[in-house]
């Protein structure tokens, strides 16, 4: 194909897709919007979310749609840019006239879009991690992923069981690390934790032995927690082993809950504990676990459709979509206000992230049971039996 014909082909394809989106404007469809960071630095979040939403909307439509209508999914890619996300949010509300929104891959893009949906009174289920999305509670904003505060609490709960109370923190200065560190410092007194060392590192640093040495030499240190994200925690883990600190219990966060962390950290990851969603250990869950069915089905569907390993981020999109779809079914309506009321009444929804029970004061609806404490053994995740 010459470049000219390629261009013509692409123009034609574009024209066709414009035509199709106009053709689908008929009364028998309902529009759900999404703005995701499918490209750019946060694409590891947005890409699985994008694939999950498209895959399940097709499935729902094949099964007859919702409330008597087919779903038309409108997805825009913000490239991780909060300003662009804001513009696309305006576009979804003003131009596409969506009835609800599932999206917002990062806390930054979500926070930028919240005013648009609050003003337009359209329900917005966010896929971002930080607690400020739902605290304070905003009438039209919900979210599905666990908060960093819950991760801290889960870690501290485990530390308390092991009678360890003097901890060192080493956190990344990126959004994830900084936000989780702040939450850990805040909830530490509730669990009787004393933070005896508090160090940080830049997200692109390649060596953290200086900070770790300082933590190692802190008197009375009993455990170390690493709120961090991306490759930083893998380097911290390697340095941790290099400094011979393996006798001090080491906790990572849910931010490293992907196989690539174990690959990057190698043997140094042995014995590291972290809180993570059930999705990561679906096949290791006991049959009696209420989430077993949902997580194994989602994992299988995602992996067979995309040929890529499942990630918890796609799971958040799955949860968001089905919380919305079930609310639409209960409301038997495509009216935004009625859908919002039904989302808030979500009770006992079994998702990949946990059992969701929302209320007027809780727009997340997860408790600490949503997190499982894992330990890395033999290069794989293992459930830590409760009580040990």
């Amino acid at each position, binding site marked *: 194909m010459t470049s000219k014909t390629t261009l013509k082909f*692409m123009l034609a*394809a*574009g024209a066709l*897709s*414009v035509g199709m*989106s106009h053709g689908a404007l008929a009364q028998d469809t309902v529009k759900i919007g999404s703005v995701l960071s499918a*490209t750019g630095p946060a694409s590891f979040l947005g890409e699985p979310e994008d694939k999950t939403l498209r895959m399940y909307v097709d499935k729902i439509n094949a099964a007859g749609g919702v409330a008597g209508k087919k779903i038309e999914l409108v997805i*825009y*890619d913000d490239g*991780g*840019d*909060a*300003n*662009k996300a*804001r*513009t696309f949010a*305006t*576009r979804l*509300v*003003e*131009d596409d006239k969506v009835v609800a929104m599932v999206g917002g891959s990062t*806390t*930054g893009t979500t*926070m*930028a879009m*919240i*005013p648009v949906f609050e003003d337009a009174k359209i329900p917005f289920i966010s896929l971002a991690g*930080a607690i*400020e999305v739902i605290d304070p509670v905003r009438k039209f904003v919900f979210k599905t992923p666990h908060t960093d505060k819950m991760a801290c609490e889960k870690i501290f709960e485990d530390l308390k069981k092991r009678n360890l109370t003097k901890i060192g923190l080493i956190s990344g*200065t*990126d*959004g994830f690390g*900084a*936000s989780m560190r*702040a939450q850990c410092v805040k909830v530490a007194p509730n669990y009787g934790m004393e933070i005896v060392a508090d160090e940080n590192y830049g997200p692109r640093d390649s060596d953290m032995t200086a900070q770790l040495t300082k933590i190692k030499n802190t008197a009375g240190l009993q455990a170390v927690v690493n709120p961090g994200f991306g490759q930083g925690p893998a380097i911290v883990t390697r340095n941790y082993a290099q400094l011979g600190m393996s006798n001090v219990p080491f906790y990572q966060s849910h931010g490293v809950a992907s196989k690539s962390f174990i690959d990057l950290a190698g043997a140094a990851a042995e014995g590291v504990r972290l809180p993570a969603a059930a999705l990561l250990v679906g096949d290791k869950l006991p049959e009696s676990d209420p989430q077993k069915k949902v997580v194994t089905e989602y994992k299988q569907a995602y992996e067979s459709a995309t040929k890529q390993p499942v990630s918890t981020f796609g799971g958040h999109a799955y949860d968001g979509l089905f919380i919305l779809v079930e609310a639409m079914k209960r409301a038997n309506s495509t009216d935004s206000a009625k859908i919002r009321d039904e989302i808030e009444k979500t009770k006992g929804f079994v998702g990949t992230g946990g059992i969701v029970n929302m209320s007027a004061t809780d727009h997340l609806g997860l408790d600490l049971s949503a997190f499982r404490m894992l330990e890395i053994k033999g290069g794989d995740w293992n459930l830590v039996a409760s009580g040990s």
Partner: protein
Amino acid sequence: MGALLNQRFMTLAVLAVVIAVLPLVFPSSYYFRVASLVWVSALAAIGLNILMGQAGQVSLGHAAFFGIGAYAVAIGPTHLGIPPWAAILVGAVLSAVLAYLVGRPILRLKGHYLAIATLGLGVLIALVISTESGWTGGPDGMPVERLTLFGWRVSGSNTWYWVTGALLLIGTWIALNLDETPTGRAFRALHDSEVAAQVVGVDVARFKLQAFVIAAVYASIAGSALAFMNGFINPDQAGFLHSVELVTIVVLGGLGSIVGSIVGAAVLVTLPQALTIFHEYEHLLLGLIIIVSMIFMRNGIVPSLSGLFLRRARS
């Protein structure tokens, strides 16, 4: 001189008419939002164009001043109790002072060295903004209180369209006038040949510094406007990629052409919106369009096209 005045007046008049007429064809507030973004980007780009196009100095860290303006209106009212409108001025003054202090040493550098120094300045400021989370909310950003003027709460895409449009008109008017003052002519002299300018008695260091300060103030005010418009700000706006975007707007539209900066902003802001129908080819096409226009319109869109029309008209 009369003709020149006329040309300046015509440019302003056309811009005012475009701003006034566009809303008549806009089907929804979304279009107001996109147009407001064009006006804001154009305002920042015009300032940068005074530095790059007129005075011939490069800045790869210009988003830092944009960020200072944006965070001034976020931090001022939230943490310090400064009224929102006054925070705009605080941001502009801060940017001007910083540009003055930093500009003195770094504008002695030339070419690549100046580019690296401004790049460093930009990275430093972005770093401070994303690290001082107690003040700035860190990498996740912070909310911005709504702007109130004499009891009038400025909010909504349609309102901001007019506010940013007015700001752009004022910015354009000042830039067009500046071009015709002794300062503007000194900038041109600097641009063409620094040695020659020095020989004829232009105080090179002083005029470079002036251009840098003016450009910083433009960016700062544009940043404040965007922060108010979004009601939210995060460090990306002060980051390196945004600096590159501003430079791209200036170069794409045409170095030294005020109208070019507006056209460049229009292209760079609206193209990604228009290209969403191509889904995964979006970024590919955006890159392709920019490459092709730079190959065929080397002096930028506006100077190349107006040159073409002039040649046509003569022949």
